[in-house]
């Protein structure tokens, strides 16, 4: 298998990233929905992509997977380790061969992400059989049961014979995770994998995801709007707003010393202890504008407490790619 050969050629070298996204831009007609998104993902690295609804988180995931809906076009480059061609320019046939084998994805809504007419064991087995990673039908069935056991589903043999509607949301999401991890992907993308789950189930699911990527030294791109969730899973964070990465950094630093006013706002809004003198939680004023209606220049300037004339021009990126900010007036730096 080529993935094994590759892993052997680069024995978990953290300097060789498994996924390189450069200047990813997604547009529909006249609107730009995602602009100049740049990040990389090392083997076994867990990176969080945070931002509120409409900031372009899911779009980033779909663009990397090559699953953008009809009518959306992507620019920039997406490089997967060991694949010569840019993933955005690769043929659909080749891309199908990579999806599910080297790229895995878990979706937000476990209630609808499984085919209602197929037994779940069969759906897991199918992922193995598509890419020819098993010898025969029995082997696939056995491996599927093992995968279901790996995500700590009780009595996997019986669960495998159930239909999706007979499982709970948490169980279905585990099945989805088993499918995404089935072929030991280099990159696992989780798009709000715990948003639809109970809080108690969330923690177990997060552990399973972390364990799953650790076992396979897969790079994890974890998408969420939930800061505490992201903080428990990820080593490094990317903050997305208005289709642009506005700040990036190691989780601890970013959460303790945020530099972009948007990140500060997000943190203030998630701090349940901090209330103003009327007992209200702090919020970021305004709302995310509808697609493509972000202001020119800095996308956050119409909601930003520090915005002024300088912000009509996009501030550009300062700092390293994995630790930096895009702001004219970042906190913790001398102004002007």
């Amino acid at each position: 298998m080529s993935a094994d050969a590759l892993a052997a050629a680069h024995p978990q070298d953290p300097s060789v990233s498994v996924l390189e996204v450069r200047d990813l831009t997604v547009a529909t007609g006249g609107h730009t929905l995602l602009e100049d998104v740049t990040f990389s993902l090392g083997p076994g690295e867990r990176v969080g992509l945070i931002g509120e609804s409409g900031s372009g988180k899911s779009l980033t995931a779909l663009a990397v997977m090559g699953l953008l809906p009809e009518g959306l076009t992507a620019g920039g480059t997406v490089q997967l380790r060991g694949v010569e061609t840019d993933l955005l320019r690769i043929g659909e046939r080749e891309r199908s061969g990579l999806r599910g084998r080297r790229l895995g994805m878990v979706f937000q809504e476990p209630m609808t992400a499984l085919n209602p007419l197929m037994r779940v064991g069969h759906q897991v087995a199918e992922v193995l059989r598509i890419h020819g990673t098993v010898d025969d039908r029995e082997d696939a069935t056995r491996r599927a049961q093992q995968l279901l056991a790996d995500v700590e589903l009780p009595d996997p043999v019986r669960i495998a014979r159930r239909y999706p509607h007979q499982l709970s949301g948490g169980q279905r999401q585990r099945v989805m995770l088993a499918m995404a991890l089935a072929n030991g992907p280099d990159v696992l993308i989780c798009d709000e994998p715990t948003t639809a789950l109970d809080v108690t189930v969330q923690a177990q699911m997060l552990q399973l995801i972390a364990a799953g990527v650790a076992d396979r030294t897969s790079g994890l791109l974890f998408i969420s709007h939930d800061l505490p969730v992201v903080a428990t899973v990820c080593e490094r964070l990317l903050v997305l707003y208005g289709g642009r990465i506005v700040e990036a950094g190691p989780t601890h630093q970013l959460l303790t010393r945020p530099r972009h006013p948007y990140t500060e706002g997000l943190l203030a809004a998630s701090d349940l202890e901090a209330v103003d003198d009327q007992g209200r939680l702090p919020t970021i004023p305004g709302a995310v504008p509808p697609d493509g209606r972000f202001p020119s220049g800095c996308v956050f300037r119409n909601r930003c407490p520090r915005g002024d004339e300088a912000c009509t021009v996009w501030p550009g990126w300062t700092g390293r790619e994995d630790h930096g900010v895009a702001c004219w007036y970042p906190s913790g730096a001398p102004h002007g």
Partner: protein
Amino acid sequence: MSGPQPLSGPSGQVPVPGEDAPPGITRSRRSLPASLLVGATLVASIVVVALLSFVWTPHDPLLVQGAQRLQGPSGEFWFGTDRFGRDVFSRLMYGARTTLLVGVVAVGIAGLIGTPLGVLMGSSPRVLGEVVMRFNDLLLAFPALLLAVMFGAVYGSSTLTAMVAIGIATIPVFARVARSGTLQVLSSDYVLAARSAGRTKLAIAVRHVLPNISGLVIVQASVSFAIAVLAEAALSFLGFGTQPPTPSWGRMLQEAQELVAVRPAQAVAPGLAIALAVLGFNLLGDGLRDRLDPRLDDRRGTE
């Protein structure tokens, strides 16, 4: 077909012993929907009658007996005789063949061509799909009977031309239903998940789309079957379908029309036969759809 099984009451409503297991336990055998049993029984009896007519009928269905015209039901002629003195019951048996043949062939042509066409158009780029479907709408507006009359004029009137024409005219209906179902399935998360797992378009169409639209197609097939039977009756009346003296239920109904005041039984017999056939196929379609959907099955079983 399930054969003559005893009806087990309103299926699954009564708690069966051993059903107290937690919901969702896979049972070895699931209860059959009542509609499936009734529909299958009706359809099976029509098939049996049609087959039986090849080897045995009470009288020769084509034998004209001037002395026996317009007799009422009796021990010898169960449903009476028509105005040529032919035995109505024998003709009904013989007519079942025509009815089944027309329904199965017409729906078969329409379903086998229309469904893949609809799935294909649903899976192709939006613009192409829309253009083809507008053309499809054009065909949909073209009356089946007119097409059948044209076919009759070109290829000669017969049961064959009638059913092929009805089948062709029904293709757009299936294409439409299949496409709308396909669009719905393709926009679902599990198709996105299947694509993220590396499934190709063709595989998704076969493994995910077809099973999930089968309910729609089956119901459409049972409705189209009923329409095909009625269309054949109308065509036969106009002289473009089954040619005399071969009996068909439609022809018998039309021939009895002018006698309905004096001999109502003549019209009732083929009318009832058509109604039962249509009902049977509709119930069979409904039942099959329910049977094929594990979600519906479970709701019945556990609630």
